[in-house]
């Protein structure tokens, strides 16, 4: 939670697995789909590589939101990795819910061909956070 004033452009950091979600984001590019430049993606081999600490750190170093994206449950290239991701990130979300910050963390399942879904998910998150930030400003 940056000490500086809330920016107009939310910064969102996404962790995307190499085999599904990162591929989908690549495809979104190839299809020239547009999404806000505030969304930036870090490639990880598997969504299970994402240590919840990364997400916490991203948020406390100034990101307005962070998401973890992996293959749909059952489709993991590493066979079962995303089931572990699901447990950990669900728990992390629950933790942030206790601090009334659950909107800042999202978990997405996006398969390699779901470029459109990828864009829809991140755009929706972006909008939600932007609206939240604006409300915060007013209040």
């Amino acid at each position, binding site marked *: 939670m940056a000490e500086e004033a809330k920016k107009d452009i939310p910064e969102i950091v996404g962790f995307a697995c190499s*085999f599904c979600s990162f591929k989908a984001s690549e495809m979104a590019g*190839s299809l020239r789909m547009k999404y806000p430049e505030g969304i930036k993606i870090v490639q990880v081999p598997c969504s299970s590589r994402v240590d919840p600490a990364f997400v916490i750190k991203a948020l406390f170093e100034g990101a307005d939101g962070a998401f973890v994206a992996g*293959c749909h449950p059952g*489709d993991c290239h590493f066979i079962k990795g995303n089931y572990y991701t699901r447990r950990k990130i669900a728990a992390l979300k629950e933790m942030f819910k206790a601090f009334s910050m659950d909107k800042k963390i999202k978990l997405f399942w996006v*398969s*390699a*061909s*779901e*470029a459109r879904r990828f864009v829809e998910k991140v755009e929706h998150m972006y909008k939600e956070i932007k609206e939240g930030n604006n409300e915060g400003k007013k209040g």
Partner: protein
Amino acid sequence: MGERYLQEKHVLVVGGGIGGITAALELASCGVRVTMLEGGPSIGGRMIQLDKTFPTLDCSSCTLTPKMVEVALHPRIELMTLAKPMGIERNGKGFSVSIQKRPRFVDMKKCTACGACSGACVMKGRLSDEFNLRLSKRAAIYIPFPQAVPQKYLVDGDGCLFVSRGKCKKACVEACETRAINFDEKEEIIESYYDAIVLAPGFDLYDATEKREYGYGSLEGVMTGIEFERICSVTGPTGGEMVINGKTPKRFYFIQCVGSRDRQTGARFCSRVCCMYTAKHATIVRDRVKDAEIYVSYIDVRAYGKNYEEFYKSTQEGGTYYIRGIPGDITQGEKGLLVRVEDMLSGELREIEADLVVLATGVRPRKDTAELCNLLKVDRDEYGFIRTDSIAPSRTSTKGVFVCGMASGPKDVPDTVASGGEAASRCLEYIGEQ
């Protein structure tokens, strides 16, 4: 052991679908050199056209694309697209093959797949897209689908004004910054020797226009399963929106065994995949279209594979009505299509209105399988599938020629994968004997 003698051996794999891909990768990982011929511009076969696969509903391109890329990058696999065997002669234990390679008109080394050419093409949006079963339009210079392997554009010779008529301003050439487009490319014939051949030509689907009573091709709202598959797909003509002719259908009618288990269509056999892909379609509809009415007509539901029965059950429980009986005909009614069917369970004749009728068309040998088999003197069965032995399921009547996948009879994906591996094993044994 192993590597030393195998390195010199060279196997030809004909067909770049999941069967051929499996066989090629297994052979290559065992040290053999492989040349893969694909008649089309990209490998991936039928499976890459599918949106999701039963019974897990996982996305087919997620699982298949890495395999396709593996083929393209494998140091021991040479991939030739737009290529097919023209002449094959036995030469000792192996074969001398002449391969016809059609021009791509695009230098694969230079193309960056940026797509500028396609945007500039005067035929843009005017040619039917085969990958989407003509449900969408493309340009004359195009990439067959976003995940295509090789990731390179090509010129469709028939559609391109310059290639077919010699007259075009060639805006694509100007648009291409890497100067990858080369209209001087000519058809090539490549002669080569192979120690063994694996056939994986795949299959065609039954031509539903033959079944006049269903009005495919004349009635609006009657389509085949594979067309529906493209409609469902996020890479399809509607981007995955369930929209047909501008509207989202609410009443769906799926008919199984169209061109299977049907003597009139010349196919007594069961196509093995239609029951399950219909259940998959019904499930997808249930997920995406609220308050959809879904009917499925069937003779027997053949949910024989692992977790298939459970998938069928959950499709039924999800609110899909299964009607035992195959419709007699489909006509245009006032409020939609009228499907007339005798429900064998209740014995009554029913007329059901539907907005969309999907025909689960059965499997047929690929048209060019006959030509291929004649070249190789390989026997086929009464339907035209390649004849094999149930004890050695990939062995054909010609020594040194093996078959996998649907070419020897209908198979689902896991069975095709296993048959690809089996073909590779027989092939390795054969070339090891020499």
